[in-house]
């Protein structure tokens, strides 16, 4: 078919300044394309300093119009950067956008190779591959799908709350799902926030209340997303609403049940194991929603069948021991994941003795200890709950910047440690040591806070602590914790006896981040954080259209950055909603029915159930609205009866031929 008529192809080789031209002989590639690829249909080959500039684009538009080009090949950067640019330019000149292809000779050639001759050769063969392929490209039309205006936000920490409020305030509906009994996240546990020392609860709770009462927000706490299907514009989401054993319709949140519950357990979650809570409880006083939840595994009624104190005293008969878990299905157009982080388990650093030495505290333990709503009412004491420390050591980088644990810097620990130092000095007057590798205080007013803590007399020691021990070597160390460290600025080992050690734990991806990512169809980096579509230019999007990420789910962040990301993700979602419909890439499979033998192998192959067997005709047929274009069925069809637009067998075969052409 095409053999008789080779479409007219234009080849454009970009210098990208010296980015490409420094390693690839651009002129040689152009000449070669013009001469050697002439028989393949190349009628014009040009090179230009910056093809993506408006002048570069005009060059293409002009050639399309004047030379009647039917295909355009641009050898430049990755298609993930500029494919859209050139397709739009070609479209302006009247060429279907899918008849333009990019060849990546920057990311795949000039940036990764050094030998100019070899790089040039490789560039030529890549160009040749695409020239061969593009002859088989066909014009395609984008499909438009209407967007459901509802949004799902997963995670009710500060990033998720911010995102939900932005969208709700713009007038669109949000489902805010949180797996704990209350929204608020880690921020609800903190005492003060650096560097301003605002009371964390004071600035957070108004936002929580707003989210809890907003007419456009459906709050679903004690709930988890279990399944997501569909695509941008129309996701079907299944949510598990765990039984609270409290009827939310009649509960007033008066708290009498909690008061009357006779059983106390250690609160490993909100109080970080330092305090106790009842078995029917709200995690903290300002919890949103205010409904309590019964901790079933610990409840005497569920264990032994007796007690029911809560039920007896509830003035509105809201306690419902028969309540069961239920599933709720919703449909949304976009999803924002703000699932946050887990605190690094300091017990893994055996040499710091956490979990073995009583007066070694984790960062979150200290937050609770210093919080006026915490177990000691804000008194900073040793583990005995009474004694005030006279010397305190604060250790940075616990579990961070360490190949034995996590490679990355957790970014908040320096500021968190400075905050601790300030609070300890202020409340106890104790001598405070800070042990750091490097001080990292780069954001607004952060370094000023470092200056302030210096000024308060905190003793800074540059050195990563080697060990915390209770083995005294000298009489003055008896009964103390001894911090072993090299003071690297002095070049000497020091043993510093202290009463209390505070570890600045790093952040880790959620323990189930990978599993959650699979539910939503997004992936994690090797560290376990979710991968952004582009780390700099698209930090709240993912590879999956319609799924956005915000806050610590993508990596360690402080509160301002998390809030900014929540808002940014909301803006991206609003942009989508306001467009009312979304364009879908027209890469689809279709069955050539006369070739179909009706074997139905493809039916089970499709993960989206897009292929149905038409009983009357004994052939299979692809539903283009469901097909996502992965091409698995194309590869699987034993009769070769399925073709995939954009990636047809002819295109790939031609590209292989082109790549292997001797240059």
């Amino acid at each position: 078919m095409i053999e008789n008529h080779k479409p007219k192809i234009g080849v454009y080789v970009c210098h990208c300044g010296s980015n490409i031209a420094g390693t690839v002989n651009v002129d040689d590639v152009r000449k070669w394309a013009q001469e050697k690829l002439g028989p393949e249909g190349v009628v014009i080959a040009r090179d230009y300093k910056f093809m993506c500039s408006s002048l570069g684009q005009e060059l293409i538009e002009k050639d399309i119009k004047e030379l009647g080009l039917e295909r355009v090949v641009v050898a430049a950067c990755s298609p993930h950067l500029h494919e859209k640019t050139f397709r739009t330019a070609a479209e302006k000149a009247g060429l279907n956008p899918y008849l333009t292809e990019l060849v990546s000779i920057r990311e795949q050639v000039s940036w990764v190779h050094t030998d100019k001759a070899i790089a040039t050769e490789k560039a030529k063969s890549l160009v040749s591959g695409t020239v061969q392929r593009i002859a088989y490209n066909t014009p395609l039309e984008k499909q438009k799908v209407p967007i459901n205006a509802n949004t799902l936000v997963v995670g009710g920490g500060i990033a998720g709350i911010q995102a939900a409020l932005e969208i709700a305030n713009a007038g669109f509906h949000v489902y805010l799902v949180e797996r704990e009994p209350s929204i608020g996240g880690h921020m609800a546990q903190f005492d003060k926030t650096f560097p301003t020392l605002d009371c964390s609860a004071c600035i957070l709770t108004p936002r929580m209340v707003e989210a809890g009462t907003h007419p456009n927000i459906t709050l679903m706490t004690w709930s988890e997303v279990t399944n997501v299907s569909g695509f941008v514009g129309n996701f079907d989401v299944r949510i598990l609403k765990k039984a609270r054993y409290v009827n939310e319709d009649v509960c007033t949140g008066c708290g009498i049940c909690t008061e009357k519950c006779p059983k106390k357990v250690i609160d490993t979650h909100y109080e970080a194991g330092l305090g106790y809570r009842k078995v029917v409880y709200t995690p903290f006083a300002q919890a949103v929603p205010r409904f309590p939840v019964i901790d079933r595994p610990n409840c005497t009624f569920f264990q032994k069948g007796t007690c029911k104190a809560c039920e007896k005293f509830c003035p509105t008969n809201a306690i419902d021991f028969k309540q069961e878990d239920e599933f709720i299905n919703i449909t949304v157009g976009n999803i924002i994941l703000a699932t946050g982080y887990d605190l690094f388990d300091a017990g893994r650093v055996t040499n710091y003795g956490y979990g073995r030495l009583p007066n070694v505290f984790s960062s979150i333990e200290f937050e609770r200890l210093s919080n006026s709503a915490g177990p000691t009412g804000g008194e900073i004491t040793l583990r005995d709950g009474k004694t005030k420390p006279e010397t305190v050591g604060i250790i940075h980088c616990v579990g961070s910047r360490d190949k034995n644990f996590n490679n990355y810097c957790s970014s908040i620990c320096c500021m968190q440690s400075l905050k601790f130092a300030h609070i300890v000095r202020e409340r106890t007057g104790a001598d405070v040591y800070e042990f750091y590798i490097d001080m990292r205080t780069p954001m607004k007013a952060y370094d000023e806070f470092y200056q302030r803590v210096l000024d308060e007399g905190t003793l800074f020691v540059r050195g990563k602590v080697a060990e915390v021990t209770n083995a005294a070597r000298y009489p003055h160390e008896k009964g103390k914790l001894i911090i072993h460290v090299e003071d690297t600025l002095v070049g000497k080992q020091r043993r510093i006896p202290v009463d209390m050690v505070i570890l600045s734990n790093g952040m880790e991806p959620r323990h189930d981040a990978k599993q959650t990512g699979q539910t939503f169809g997004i992936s994690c980096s090797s560290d376990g954080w979710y991968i952004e579509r582009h780390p700099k230019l698209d930090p709240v999007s993912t590879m999956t259209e319609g799924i956005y990420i915000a806050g610590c789910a993508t990596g360690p962040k402080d509160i301002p950055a998390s809030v900014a990301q929540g808002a940014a993700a909301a803006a991206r979602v609003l942009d989508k909603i306001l467009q009312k419909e979304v364009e879908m890439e027209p890469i689809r499979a279709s069955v050539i029915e006369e070739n179909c033998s009706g074997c139905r192998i493809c039916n089970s192959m499709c993960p989206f159930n897009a292929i149905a067997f038409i009983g009357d005709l004994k052939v299979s047929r692809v539903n283009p609205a469901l097909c996502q274009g992965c091409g698995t069925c194309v590869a699987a069809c034993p009769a070769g009866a399925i073709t995939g637009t954009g990636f047809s067998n002819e295109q790939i075969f031609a590209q292989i031929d082109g790549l292997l052409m001797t240059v």
Partner: protein
Amino acid sequence: MAQTKTASLTKGAGFKKQEDLTLLNEVSSATAGVSHLEMCIQCGTCGGSCPSAADMDHTPRALFAMLRAGMRDEVLHSNTPWMCVSCYHCVVRCPQEVHIADVMYTLKSMAIKAHQYKDNTAPDFSQTFVDNIEAFGRSYELGLAGRFYLQHQPLRLPGMAGMGWGMLSSRRMNILPSRIEQIDQLKAILTKAKTLELTS
């Protein structure tokens, strides 16, 4: 003008010699395994962990900074490697997985080759130990103790007599060395091995 400037600059101590930027690499490649020495972030975990740091003239961390700065003589003169007790606390705690203990072995053998150690007690102890092994294939505690103490710590001998007698009388120290059967095979292996060096 330019000449005067150079002349005045060379007076500064830092300009006496050109920095030896190959030193770090030399040490790294002469170390068994992959040393990761170039990855050191100078955090001091090693210096903080070291049980004998108090008796070192430089902490291990400082020594690595000196390697980077190409201070060959100062490093090879340092007693730090000789004070290493091979407890591997630093190795397992190092956040950058530097094989610190093995680097210390490398520095010791480099110092021996360059005859640049300050105090010959430790090198001689090692050499005496090795001589025994090369002769018998096994270590020989009495021979080692006798030869070594007479040479280096004669004053310590009287004080240790009781202990030595205790060891001998309980037959915890043998009077005669034991020898492996195929000592010639071992000697052939070691002779060949001495002609080989680990470089790249």
